[in-house]
């Protein structure tokens, strides 16, 4: 007999799923329970090099209240139906809106999109999962609150809850987003509602101003995890500074990453440069200005000679360091002298400010990201190879020049083996660097798709063999990355899972946790 569903949850009989769907409809109404292929199409498309069928959901539920979610988890427990939560569903390059495993029911929280509170004086926000950065940006502007957002490159269409819960990053001084998280409301698998930190105390007004509460700090276990469903999320916002000075420093040789990191680390640790700095390779910035097909054709990775021609034609360094100073004009003047002296020592650095680079499209979008202005220009990356294939390879490096050089060389070598380009950057760190590489490939080309999968697998294997851990990964590779962190951590994760969600109904497979 043909199923009426495009997929079924693993281990769930269709007759039981029918009953669960009926009960979901009773809670949410027919229009908010999606099961047809047409309705579920937007939940299926991913950028990963695996068949879409591997991540096809059985249904999607559009919840709007905490009470509905409590009822949904009760139904899921009764019928052992697994759910996969999304907020804005724009985790592009990490799995988009599709579930980790075929047949999971997507719990789509996009319609929970109220901005509950923005406090101008204490500079914090409390929002629901479906709030986008664009929505919050508009709200702050409309109410003239004088606060800045920090957001990732998909800014306008992504949101602070999903991004922070996946431990994403931005580019302002608040760029390490989870550092600035403060208080969550979480629906647990048993239906109870937990407010973390000071939020557990009735009548407390310090939920969004003091992180730690009393006893073990719990917020961390609800990030990159499946221990609960976050329905409210507090975080701190940056007061708009009186002045802002973005700049870019260009270098011409790949080995110069050593000098860059050694120069920038003390400036970051001391706070002279306060923001999440980006050290972008030429091939990360080139798509904003150039077409790959103008420089190379046929299979294989782009040769260094072509990269140098792109740099020359489009005024790029092989490394492009984007950073900014914030504060009063006096503060900026003092720190600018320190920055220019530090980078001026070797004579290799070319320092450009808005005066020289204001009309440069790469500088323009980077400057916007560093002051919380909406832009999706970084999506130009997807035009480099075309075909809609993208996976973020995201190993962590010490903020030590020799280490970043080693990681760059190893990544480039493995990508080249599979005919792929090094579109990489190092970001954020004071003591660490998130090494972010967009593994771009043409998903309409079966051979390139196969190569991309094998390449990513090898990148994970080779990096973990050298002790380089990955901080975030797409849903197709979560188990593999979990393995690299060893059996004890996996066992602890699993023990917590069994204690908090004994039926395994909340996002089984997230970060390899079941």
């Amino acid at each position, binding site marked *: 007999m043909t199923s009426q569903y495009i997929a079924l949850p693993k281990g769930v009989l269709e007759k039981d799923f029918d009953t669960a769907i009926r009960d979901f409809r009773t809670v949410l109404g027919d229009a908010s329970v999606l099961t047809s292929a047409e309705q579920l199409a937007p939940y299926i498309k991913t950028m990963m090099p695996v068949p879409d069928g591997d991540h096809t959901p059985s249904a999607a539920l559009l919840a709007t209240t905490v009470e509905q979610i409590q009822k949904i988890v009760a139904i899921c427990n009764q019928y052992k139906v697994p759910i996969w939560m999304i907020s804005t569903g724009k985790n592009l390059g990490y799995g988009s809106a599709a579930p980790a495993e075929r047949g999971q029911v997507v719990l789509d929280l996009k319609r929970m999109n109220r901005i509950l509170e923005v406090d101008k004086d204490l500079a914090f926000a409390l929002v629901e999962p479906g709030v986008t950065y664009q*929505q919050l940006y508009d709200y702050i502007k409309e109410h003239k609150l004088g606060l800045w957002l920090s957001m990732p490159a998909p800014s306008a*269409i992504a949101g602070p809850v999903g991004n922070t819960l996946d431990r994403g990053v931005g580019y302002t001084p608040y760029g390490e987003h989870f550092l600035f998280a403060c208080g969550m409301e979480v629906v647990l698998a048993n239906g109870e509602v937990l407010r973390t930190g000071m939020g557990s105390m009735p009548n407390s007004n310090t939920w969004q101003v003091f992180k730690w509460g009393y006893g073990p700090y719990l917020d961390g276990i609800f990030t990159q995890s499946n221990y609960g469903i976050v329905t409210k999320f507090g975080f701190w916002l940056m007061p708009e500074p009186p002045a802002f000075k973005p700049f870019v420093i260009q270098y011409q040789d790949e080995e110069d990453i050593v000098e860059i990191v050694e120069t920038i680390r003390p400036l970051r640790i001391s706070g002279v440069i306060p923001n999440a700095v980006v050290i972008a390779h030429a091939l990360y910035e080139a798509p904003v200005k150039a077409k790959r097909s103008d420089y190379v054709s046929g299979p294989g990775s782009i040769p260094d000679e072509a990269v140098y021609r792109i740099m020359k034609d489009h005024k790029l360094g092989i490394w492009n360091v984007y950073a900014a100073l914030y504060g009063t004009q006096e503060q900026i003047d003092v720190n600018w002298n320190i920055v220019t002296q530090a980078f001026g020592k070797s004579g290799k650095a070319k320092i450009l400010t808005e005066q020289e680079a204001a009309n440069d499209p790469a500088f323009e979008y980077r400057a916007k990201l560093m002051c919380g202005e909406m832009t999706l220009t970084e999506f130009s990356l997807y035009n480099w190879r075309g075909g809609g294939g993208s996976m973020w390879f995201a190993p962590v490096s010490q903020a030590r020049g020799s280490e970043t050089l080693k990681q760059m060389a190893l990544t480039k070598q493995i990508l080249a083996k599979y005919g792929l380009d090094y579109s990489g950057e190092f970001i954020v760190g004071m003591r660490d660097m998130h090494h972010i590489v967009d593994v771009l490939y043409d998903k309409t080309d079966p051979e390139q798709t196969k190569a991309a999968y094998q390449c990513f697998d090898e990148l994970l294997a080779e990096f973990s063999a050298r002790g380089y851990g990955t901080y975030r990964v797409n849903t197709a590779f979560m188990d593999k990355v979990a393995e690299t962190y060893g059996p004890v951590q996996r066992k602890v994760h699993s023990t917590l899972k069994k204690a908090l969600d004994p039926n395994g109904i909340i996002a089984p497979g997230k970060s390899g946790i079941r």
Partner: protein
Amino acid sequence: MKARKITPLITFGVMSMVFFLVSGWVSAAQDGKPSPNHAWKDGAEIYAKICAYCHDVQVGPPIRNRELSPDYIRHMVRNGNRAMPAFRPSEIDDESLAKLAEFISHRSTQP
């Protein structure tokens, strides 16, 4: 070169304290009321706050003033295309998508 000057903050007067019921006891901030659930005003707003970030800056192809059919636009929005992500009805509801498709397909008199 001097740093970019930023417009001084506007000091707000005292705004009325608003309370709202979310499991009992979350209070609103002094500076802003909790927002209602988000709803799109019209097709132009959706275009400006989603589509234009790619299609007006040469990241995606231009789509306005090309007389693309509303059905084609609806299909692209719901299914995505290559690198273009798909947009769900929870992001752009069917009624708003119809307005967006109309806005994009309608030939503008503006240059």
